[in-house]
């Protein structure tokens, strides 16, 4: 329970920390819950298929999932809008300070939460401390029968057993776009590239871009809408903004 003093500490942090670099806007009103983002994310980021047995133990692996909630009492149940949930790339992340191996660190260059797989020893403290519950753990070396290995993305490390993983805001695409832009001697243009989930979304409910650039589409959307950031009151400084009901 947040006491008055707790809230003060939160406010202090909010004013001190600088804003993020990359951000996302999700419009829940146009999300149809079709799961295309979930599939696209798994393809892009080599996320393993866990299978039904391990899923039953709550060990399913997703970097993005569609959350649904129900409101009211039977028979008057109403479903709330679909809520795609992924790593919020917090500016003041709760997962980072609890890692005893410094495997999840904050990127100074990209202002993202990094997960350094080769550094990870699998204590799972980070997942337990994540208020969004968006981290997934490789409980096993999940099988990829032929010809599935052929569709692995070479730009993303294939994780093995005992390693934590989570959404990276498709950092490989960020690097590729930056590298392309540098090769052509220009800056990355807004909308030049996007994350796999945003690219796959048939309703364009997901928008990705620079939140530190006031001209970018995400910044414009954030400025003109009444978005919420989930669990912002915890002081995590999330970088994903949700729009709902309007």
């Amino acid at each position, binding site marked *: 329970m947040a006491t008055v003093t707790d809230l003060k500490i939160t406010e202090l942090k909010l004013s001190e920390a600088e804003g993020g670099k990359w951000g996302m806007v999700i419009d829940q009103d146009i999300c149809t819950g079709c799961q295309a983002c979930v599939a696209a994310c798994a393809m892009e980021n080599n996320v393993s298929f866990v299978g039904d047995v391990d899923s039953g133990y709550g060990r399913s692996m997703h970097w993005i999932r569609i959350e649904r909630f129900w409101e009211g009492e039977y028979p008057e149940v109403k479903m709330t809008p679909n809520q795609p949930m992924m790593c919020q790339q917090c500016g003041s992340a709760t997962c980072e300070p609890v890692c005893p191996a410094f495997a999840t660190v904050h990127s100074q260059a*990209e202002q993202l939460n990094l997960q*350094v797989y080769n550094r990870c020893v699998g204590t799972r403290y980070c997942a337990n401390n994540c208020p969004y519950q968006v981290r997934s753990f490789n409980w096993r070396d999940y099988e990829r029968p032929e010809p599935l290995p052929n569709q692995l993305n070479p730009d993303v490390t294939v994780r093995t057993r005992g390693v934590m993983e989570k959404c990276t805001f498709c950092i490989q695409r960020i*690097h590729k776009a930056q*590298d392309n832009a540098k090769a052509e001697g220009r800056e990355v243009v807004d909308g030049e590239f996007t994350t796999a989930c945003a690219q796959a979304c048939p309703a364009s409910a997901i928008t990705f871009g620079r939140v530190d650039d006031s001209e970018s589409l995400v910044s414009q959307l954030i400025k003109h809408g009444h978005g919420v950031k989930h669990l912002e009151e915890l002081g995590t400084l999330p970088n994903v903004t949700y729009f709902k009901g309007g």
Partner: protein
Amino acid sequence: MIKRLFDWLKQPLGLIAVGIVFLAVFSVAAYGLYTTQQSPAQPIQFPHKTHVAFGIQCLYCHPGAAKGPSAGIPSQAKCWACHQQIAKTQTSVLLAPLKEHVESGTPIEWVPVAQVPDFVQFNHRAHVAAGQNCENCHGDMTTQTIAENPQVFNMGFCLDCHIKSAGEDQAKLNKLADCGTCHY
């Protein structure tokens, strides 16, 4: 118990035993080191020395280095463009496998030597564009017959140069020393 062991080791027989054990461990270690210093068995004994000495640019055969993450190994079509016209191609034993591959149209399966693990993302383009020479990382290829890796691409090797080239520029240091630059 330990004292008895020491007493036994001090007599001549014991000293010889110690010597034999030491020699065995040393020679295994030396052999292990030796095997890491060898270039692998390649399908064709391709001599970099000869080709670079003709003044062929590295980027002629490894054009990817200037354009993208991986430098690439030339296909036999590129070899054949020259070797078709060289008399020695018909006679040299070293070139017989090349002729075979060209005639059958099968790819040459080179054994990779310069490699970083899967969890490291390396990009040639950025380095070549920043003016880094191939020799800085691959050693002097003009003296090598079959390509070998002169240094282990460990993290210190990368970071030493990154920190040095960033210098006083804090933003550049943030970028070049960031875990997310190489690991994702």
